[in-house]
């Protein structure tokens, strides 16, 4: 039996909870752990499990629906969609490069050694293959 998929959030993080949900789910979607057709918990159930407001989860689901990952039309459930790569992705290359550099700077400021950062980036690169 495959291991159960988990979503974790840290309420003490400076990142808003809805952002953490979007990021966490997007990682699972991009990596294929959440496959097209699979259902996510209802907004009410996920909010209950995470101990946060319903609107926070609703906002996260709407964000992912706007990105084309989720179909929210089926009543209260959220279903994962088959999603083609966005045509406009390459145009945002500069924005992503800037965000990646900010993240690397943040990791260094937090005390991570350059080799560790390089290992993390290499690990992420391998997952793309």
């Amino acid at each position, binding site marked *: 039996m495959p291991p*159960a*998929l*988990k*979503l*974790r*959030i*840290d*309420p*003490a993080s400076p990142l808003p909870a809805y952002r953490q949900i979007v990021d966490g789910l997007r990682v*699972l979607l991009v990596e294929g752990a*959440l496959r097209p057709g699979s*259902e*996510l*918990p*209802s907004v*009410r*159930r*996920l*909010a*209950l*499990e*995470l*101990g*946060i*407001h*319903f609107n926070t989860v609703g906002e996260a689901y709407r964000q992912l629906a706007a990105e084309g990952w989720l179909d929210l039309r089926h009543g209260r*459930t959220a279903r994962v969609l088959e999603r083609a790569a966005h045509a406009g992705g390459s145009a945002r290359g500069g924005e992503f490069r800037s965000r990646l550099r900010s993240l690397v700077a943040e990791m260094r400021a937090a005390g991570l050694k350059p080799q560790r950062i390089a290992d993390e980036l290499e690990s992420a690169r391998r997952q793309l293959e």
Partner: protein
Amino acid sequence: MIDLRWVVLLLVALDAAILIALPHLAPRGIWFGVRTGDEFRRGAEGRAALRRYRAASGGALAVAAGAALAFGGRSEFALLAVGLGPLPAALAAYLANYFRLKPHALPAVDIREADLAPAAERLPLWTLLAAPPFALPAAAMLFLRENWERIPLRYPIHYGADGRPNGWAHRTERAVYAPLVFAEGLLLLILLLAVATLLFSRRSARRSGIPQVFVAVLYLLAGLFSGIGIDPVVHVSPAILLGAVLLFVVGLIVYASRRLSAPDAVAEPTPDDRWTLGGIYSNPDDPAIFVQKRIGYGYTVNFANPWSWAVMGGFFLGVAGLAAYLVWALK
């Protein structure tokens, strides 16, 4: 006539079963309502806290047992005072430990985790076992109907501390069936509370135990009230009923201890600063109505959620309504 001292002694035994087990009825890592970590209770401070609690509650139980033998049968007040007396003493000792151990609380770690498998929000098959208890009071009603002529025209419904009847009812359909109608209503309210607890609590290993405990409570209450209901025809000693409750409580404590000592019986990740005195949870940011207890086995309500007040208010109003009906029917 029965010697009510034995009934009071049974009450004290019931207190003892609950009070001795209480410190151990907590999720792993929680000791006297404080999140101290799993190892703390085995350390010097943890064991000293348990010794202090046992000394206080054991002393109170010994005094109550002595008082039960000396004064238990004198008055209803003595019966109640002796039966319930050890509880405040033990609670005070528990709270004293809570405040003493608070400085040992671990730093708050509040990482929340959710299983992404869509929840099966159907009720588990276990809940089918909740049906038979509803048949028991109904069967008792049929038994009373079949034996109507054996019911005295005036029969006792209340007994004094000396064991003599001091309240009477007349043989009317309203009075004879009232305890059993009350029982059916109470069982229904408890079933609804069980369903609400399942639907509005977080998924966890402990949550799967909710139906078992509620179903067991339904069987106990159905048995007790059916026993009380047929009393006009077949007198059931209060000592037998109390003995059944004692056996049930001991069984429940053994069951709860086993569940709570399981490796996955960790405390639900609720924020520590939202707990008052280790047992009262109030978090307006948490949509859960029911959260796992940190003291004892089971669930408590999130007092900051208005729906918690609605659910519990509805339950207690229902019980109060049933009690008012019982008083009216037996008048």
